[in-house]
C-alpha cells in the first residue's frame, strides 16, 4: 500500500515476484492501477488519503472475527495493559482524544498513559512544557516504568480498559460498509483483503506490508504506519521471517542520513537533540530522555561516547563531557520552518546539497520566494539544478513578468560535486544494510566529495575562530577535526570517519558492540547503533562474500545496524517459552542445552544468555529489566505497542481524518481533519476549502502525485541523463475517460492543472489506470501527476510541486503531497501575467484561506 514497488523499486520487486512464483499472494492497494497492480493477485483502488480507514477496516475484521494471533498478542504486545480510567477515545469525543487543548491546538498526553503510572509519561516530558504533546515528542523513546513492567494487566484481555478492549471499541465502527463509504472500496473487497491477511498469518505463515511515501506524505502519515503496525502485531507478523512492515525508501542513503541524521531533532543513533530544560546538565538530559529500562537505558553511555568522539580531551566529567555545547531546540526547526524563516529574513544563509527543493519541496513558489530572501546560497550538485538557477529568466515568476533577475539580491555559489563513483563511502539501504562503495576514479576539475567540502570548510572556520575568546566558539575549537587526508585533492579518509563512528576504547582498540560503551568517558562512539561496524579493525560494510557462497540471510555481505542484525525484534520468531512457532518459520530460538539464543545465521536480538522465563528483580534497569519473553527491547516494557502511550502528538491510536483539502466530508466525526496538522502561513500558500464549504466546488478533483521508473524524485539525477530523458521526455497528467469527457480533455493533447498555488500544464493521458470512485454516493474523480520536471535538464516541463501547499503532519513535518484538490482544464496554461490572473480568479471563486497552525516560524525570536 502507498507504494508502486514494481516501478519505483523494480529490483527489490524481484523478490515479490519470486515469492509469488512460490505461492505467495500479492495484494496491491493503491489509488492507481500500476505495474505493481498488474503483477498482483488483486488490486484495490482507494481514494487518496483514506488508508487509515481501509487499515482500520482490516483491524476491525481481525478483532471481530477473533483472528488475532492470540499467544503472540497476549505475551508480546501491550494488549493486556490496563489504561487510565480518564482516557477517552475519538469515538467518545467526536474525533478528539482526551487531553485536547483547543487554545494551543495540542494534546495533554497524561490520560494516554498506562494505569498506575504518573507524571513522567513521555520521554522529553519536561521538554514539552509539562506533558503537552509538542512537535518534539517524536524524539521520545518511552516512559519510565519500574523494572520495565506495566503496573496493571489482564492477560485474558477482558478488562474493559485493557488495550485490547479499547482497540476493539475504537475500530468497531470501521465496518466494510463504512470503509466503502469513506474509501470508495466495495465492502466485499475489503473483507477479501482482510481475510487473505488473516489466512496468511499465524505460526506457520507470515505476511509483510510494504509502503513508501504514498503513506508518509499525508497529514496523517505517521498514524497510517501505526495502523499497519497494529495489524502486524495482532497477526504476529513482526520479528519473524517473511513478516514486517517494510519502508521502501527512495534515495540511496536516505536511511543512512536518518540514522546518522542530517535532521534537526535528533543526534546520531536517534538520540534526541536536547531542549533548553536540560541546560548544561547531562544527567538531567539522560533522565528526561531515556526510559531507564530496555535498550534506551544505556542512553548515558551512548551520549557520553558521542560527546567524547566529538570533543575528545576537551570533554571531561567536570564539564559534563561538553554536553552544554550541543545547541538546544525549542520548536520546529525543520526544512519547511526554515523556509518561512528565510521569507521573514531571519534565516540568511542556506546550503542545498544533492537536493533540489525548488522541484522537490512542496509549493515551489514559496521555496523560490524563500531563496530570493536569502543573503547567500550554496548549491552543491552534479548539474545546475533549479535550486541553483532560481534567479534566472526561466524561473516561473520571472518568465511571467512578476519580477526581474536584477531585483534578486541573493548571492549564489555553485560548487560541482563528485559522483558516487568518484569517492568512497557507505550507503545504508532501506533495510539498514550499510554497503561500502569503493572509489573508481578521481573527480574531475573542481568536483569534490561532501567529505572534502565539510572537512575543508570546517578547517577554515576553525582557523578563523582559533583565537576567539568567546564561549560560543569553544565547541568549534574543541572539536576533533583532524582526519588524515589522501590523494591529489587532500580528500579526508572516509574510512577514518567510519572508525570514529564505530568508536574506540581508551587503549585505542575498536569497540565491538554498543553494549561495551561506557558512561565514564573511557569510550568514544560517533553513533551507538553503528558500534561494531569496524569491529576487529575490519570495515564490515565492505564485506562482499557472494550470495552464492552463503545462506539466504547473507550475513557476510555488508553490515546492518545494530550488530549486523538482519531482522529486528527477532526474538518474536520464537514462542514465549523460546521454542520456534513452527518448523516452517523457525529463525531464532532458545537452545536450552547451551543456554543461549541461537538462529539460522542472524544475530539474535536479545540478551544472548537470557532464559525465556527470566523475571527482572525489583530494581532492574536497562536491559536487565527486559523480561525473558518480551522481544521489543527498545521499548521500556519490551512490548509491541498496539496502543502508543507516548511518542505521538496526534493520538495514541490511528483514526480516520480527511486530508486537509478533500472533496469529501468525514462521516465519522465532527473533527474531520487531523486537529494537530501544521499549516504554514504565507501569501504563496493559500488553502482550498473542503467539501461542504463555499468555494470547494472550484477545486472539485482529487490531485495525487507520484514518480516514474525512469526518473528520480526532483529529477536532478535523471533529467540530466540521455537515456532516461528519452524514455520519459515530458510531464503528463493521468485522467480517466470519464473525467476526460467531463472536462473535454484529449488524449496526448494539453491540459492545465490549477490550484490556489499555481497553474501548470502537462500532456493528457486518458487511461483506465486511474478510475473515478464512488464515495458516500458521489463520484470522485482523481488526477494523477508525476513529479520530476522543471525548467532545467535535457528534457523540461512544469513541476508538480508548483501546485502543492505546505501542510504538514506535526509528528514529522512532512507535507501532504499525496492528496490535495485541483481543477483541470483543456489546453495549455496561460503565459505571462495571465497565469497569475487565472490563479487569482480561482482563488476568488474558491474562497481560499490563509491559515496558521503550529507555524512557530522555527522557534523564539532568534535572529
Amino acid at each position: 500500500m502507498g507504494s508502486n514497488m514494481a516501478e519505483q523499486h523494480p529490483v527489490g520487486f524481484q523478490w515479490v515476484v519470486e515469492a509469488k512464483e512460490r505461492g505467495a499472494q500479492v495484494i496491491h492497494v493503491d489509488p492507481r492501477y500500476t505495474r505493481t497492480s498488474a503483477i498482483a493477485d488483486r488490486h484495490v483502488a482507494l481514494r487518496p488519503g483514506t488508508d487509515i480507514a481501509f487499515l482500520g477496516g482490516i483491524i476491525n475484521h481481525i478483532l471481530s472475527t477473533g483472528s488475532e494471533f492470540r499467544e503472540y498478542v497476549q505475551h508480546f504486545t501491550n494488549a493486556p495493559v490496563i489504561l487510565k480510567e480518564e482516557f477517552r477515545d475519538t469515538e467518545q469525543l467526536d474525533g478528539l482524544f482526551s487531553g485536547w487543548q483547543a487554545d494551543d491546538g495540542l494534546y495533554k498526553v497524561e490520560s494516554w498513559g498506562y494505569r498506575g503510572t504518573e507524571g513522567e509519561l513521555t520521554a522529553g516530558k519536561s521538554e514539552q512544557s509539562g506533558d503537552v504533546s509538542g512537535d518534539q515528542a517524536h524524539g521520545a523513546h518511552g516512559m519510565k516504568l519500574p523494572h520495565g513492567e506495566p503496573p496493571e494487566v489482564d492477560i485474558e484481555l477482558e478488562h474493559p480498559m485493557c488495550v485490547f478492549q479499547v482497540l476493539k471499541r475504537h475500530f468497531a465502527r470501521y465496518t466494510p460498509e463504512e470503509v466503502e463509504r469513506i474509501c470508495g472500496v466495495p465492502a466485499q473487497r475489503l473483507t477479501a483483503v482482510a481475510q487473505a491477511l488473516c489466512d496468511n498469518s499465524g505460526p506457520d505463515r507470515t505476511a509483510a506490508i510494504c509502503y513508501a511515501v504514498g503513506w508518509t506524505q499525508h497529514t496523517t502519515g505517521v498514524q497510517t504506519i501505526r495502523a499497519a503496525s497494529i495489524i502486524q502485531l495482532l497477526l504476529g507478523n513482526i520479528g519473524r521471517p517473511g513478516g514486517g512492515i517494510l519502508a521502501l525508501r527512495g534515495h540511496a542513503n536516505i536511511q543512512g542520513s536518518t540514522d546518522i541524521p542530517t535532521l534537526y531533532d535528533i543526534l546520531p543513533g536517534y538520540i534526541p537533540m536536547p531542549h533548553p530544560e536540560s541546560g548544561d546538565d547531562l544527567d538531567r538530559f539522560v533522565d528526561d530522555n531515556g526510559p531507564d529500562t530496555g535498550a534506551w537505558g544505556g542512553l548515558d553511555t551512548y551520549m557520553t561516547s558521542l560527546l567524547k568522539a566529538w570533543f575528545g580531551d576537551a570533554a571531561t566529567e567536570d564539564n559534563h563531557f561538553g554536553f552544554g555545547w550541543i545547541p538546544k531546540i525549542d520548536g520546529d526547526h525543520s526544512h519547511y520552518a526554515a523556509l518561512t524563516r528565510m521569507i521573514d529574513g531571519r534565516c540568511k544563509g542556506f546550503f542545498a546539497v544533492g537536493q533540489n527543493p525548488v522541484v522537490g519541496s512542496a509549493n515551489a513558489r514559496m521555496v523560490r520566494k524563500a531563496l530570493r530572501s536569502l543573503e547567500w546560497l550554496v548549491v552543491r550538485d552534479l548539474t545546475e539544478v533549479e535550486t541553483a538557477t532560481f534567479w534566472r529568466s526561466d524561473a516561473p515568476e520571472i518568465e511571467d513578468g512578476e519580477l526581474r533577475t536584477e531585483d534578486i539580491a541573493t548571492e549564489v555559489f555553485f560548487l560541482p560535486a563528485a559522483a558516487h563513483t568518484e569517492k568512497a563511502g557507505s550507503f545504508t539501504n532501506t533495510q539498514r544494510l550499510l554497503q561500502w562503495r569503493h572509489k573508481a576514479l578521481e573527480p574531475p576539475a573542481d568536483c569534490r566529495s561532501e567529505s572534502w567540502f565539510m572537512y575543508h570548510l570546517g578547517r577554515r572556520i576553525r582557523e578563523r575562530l582559533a583565537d576567539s575568546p568567546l564561549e560560543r566558539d569553544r565547541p568549534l575549537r574543541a572539536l576533533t577535526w583532524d582526519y588524515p587526508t589522501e590523494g591529489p585533492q587532500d580528500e579526508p579518509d572516509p574510512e577514518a570517519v567510519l572508525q570514529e563512528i564505530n568508536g574506540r576504547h581508551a587503549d585505542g582498540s575498536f569497540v565491538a558492540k554498543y553494549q561495551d560503551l561506557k558512561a565514564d568517558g573511557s569510550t568514544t562512539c560517533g553513533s551507538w547503533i553503528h558500534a561494531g561496524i569496524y569491529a576487529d579493525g575490519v570495515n564490515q560494510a565492505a564485506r562482499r562474500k557472494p550470495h552464492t557462497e552463503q545462506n539466504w540471510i547473507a550475513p557476510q555481505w555488508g553490515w546492518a545496524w545494530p550488530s549486523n542484525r538482519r531482522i529486528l525484534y527477532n526474538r518474536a520468531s520464537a514462542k514465549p517459552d523460546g521454542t520456534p512457532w513452527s518448523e516452517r518459520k523457525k529463525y531464532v530460538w532458545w537452545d536450552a542445552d547451551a543456554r543461549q539464543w541461537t538462529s539460522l545465521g542472524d544475530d539474535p536480538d536479545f540478551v544472548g544468555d537470557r532464559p525465556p522465563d527470566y523475571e527482572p528483580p525489583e530494581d532492574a534497569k536497562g536491559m536487565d529489566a527486559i523480561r525473558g519473553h518480551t522481544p521489543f527491547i527498545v521499548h521500556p516494557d519490551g512490548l509491541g505497542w498496539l496502543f502508543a502511550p507516548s511518542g505521538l502528538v496526534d493520538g495514541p491510536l490511528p483514526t480516520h481524518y480527511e486530508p486537509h483539502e478533500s472533496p469529501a466530508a468525514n462521516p465519522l466525526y465532527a473533527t474531520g481533519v487531523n486537529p494537530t496538522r501544521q499549516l504554514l502561513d504565507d501569501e504563496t500558500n493559500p488553502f482550498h476549502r473542503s467539501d461542504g464549504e463555499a468555494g470547494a466546488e472550484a477545486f472539485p478533483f482529487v490531485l495525487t502525485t507520484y514518480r516514474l521508473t525512469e526518473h528520480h524524485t526532483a529529477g536532478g539525477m535523471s533529467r540530466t541523463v540521455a537515456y532516461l530523458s528519452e524514455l520519459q521526455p515530458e510531464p503528463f497528467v493521468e485522467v480517466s475517460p470519464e473525467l476526460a469527457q467531463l472536462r473535454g480533455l484529449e488524449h496526448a493533447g494539453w491540459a492545465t492543472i490549477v490550484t490556489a498555488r499555481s497553474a501548470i500544464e502537462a500532456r493528457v493521458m486518458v487511461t483506465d489506470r486511474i478510475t473515478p470512485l464512488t464515495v458516500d454516493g458521489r463520484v470522485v474523480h482523481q488526477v494523477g501527476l508525476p513529479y520530476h520536471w522543471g525548467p532545467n535538464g535535457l528534457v523540461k516541463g512544469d513541476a508538480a510541486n508548483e501546485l502543492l501547499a505546505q501542510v504538514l503532519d506535526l509528528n514529522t513535518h512532512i507535507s501532504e503531497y499525496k492528496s490535495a484538490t485541483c481543477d483541470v482544464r483543456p489546453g495549455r496554461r496561460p503565459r505571462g501575467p495571465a497565469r497569475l490572473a487565472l490563479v487569482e480568479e480561482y482563488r476568488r471563486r474558491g474562497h481560499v484561506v490563509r491559515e496558521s497552525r503550529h507555524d512557530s516560524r522555527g522557534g523564539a525570536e532568534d535572529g
Partner: protein
Amino acid sequence: MSGRMRRGWRLGLPPLLRQLAGDPLGLGPAARSPRSQELRARTETADRVVQSICPYCAVGCGQKVYVKHEQVIQIEGDPDSPISRGRLCPKGAASKGLVNSPLRQTKVKYRRPHGTAWEELDLETAMDMIADRVVRTRAETWRETDEDGRPLNRTLGLAWLGGATLDTEENYLIKKLFTAAGAVSIENQARI
C-alpha cells in the same frame, strides 16, 4: 565431436530446437557476421573494475564500475549481490550516463547579488568566501539563551538541506560540524 562441428550442428536447427539444444537466444547464424564474431564487450578491456552501489533508490543494488583511461566506460549489475543478483533497473543501468552526463558541471560558478549571469570563481576562493559567510551569519544570528535565561547556544540563521544522496560518513561530518557550530536547521530528503 569437435567444438566446431557441434556448433554447426546446432546452428542448422530451427530456432525453437536451437534453443532447446543449448542456444538460449535462438538467434543462430542470422545474428553472426565476421564483424560480430570479433566484437568484444568493452568491459573485457577495462583497466579496472570497482565494486560500488547504485546511487538512485534505497534498494542498494550492487554495481560494478568499469574504468579505462580514467573514464567510466560501463556500469553493470553485480551478480554477487544478495540484494540485486546482478540486476539493475532503468535508472541504475543508465548510471554511466549520470556520471558522464553532458550537463555535468565541473567548475565553480558564482552569481553576485543582483547579477544576471554566472561568473567564474576559483574553488579555494569560493571556500574562503563561504567560510567567511558562515562565520559572519552565525555571529549575527547567535542566540545564547531563551526568554527564561535557559541556554540555547545556537543559530537559526543558516540552514542546510541534503544528505539522502550523500554517504553515511559525509552525513556524520555535516551533523558534527554544524552541531558544534550551533546550527540546528540541518535537514534532508527524509523530511520530504
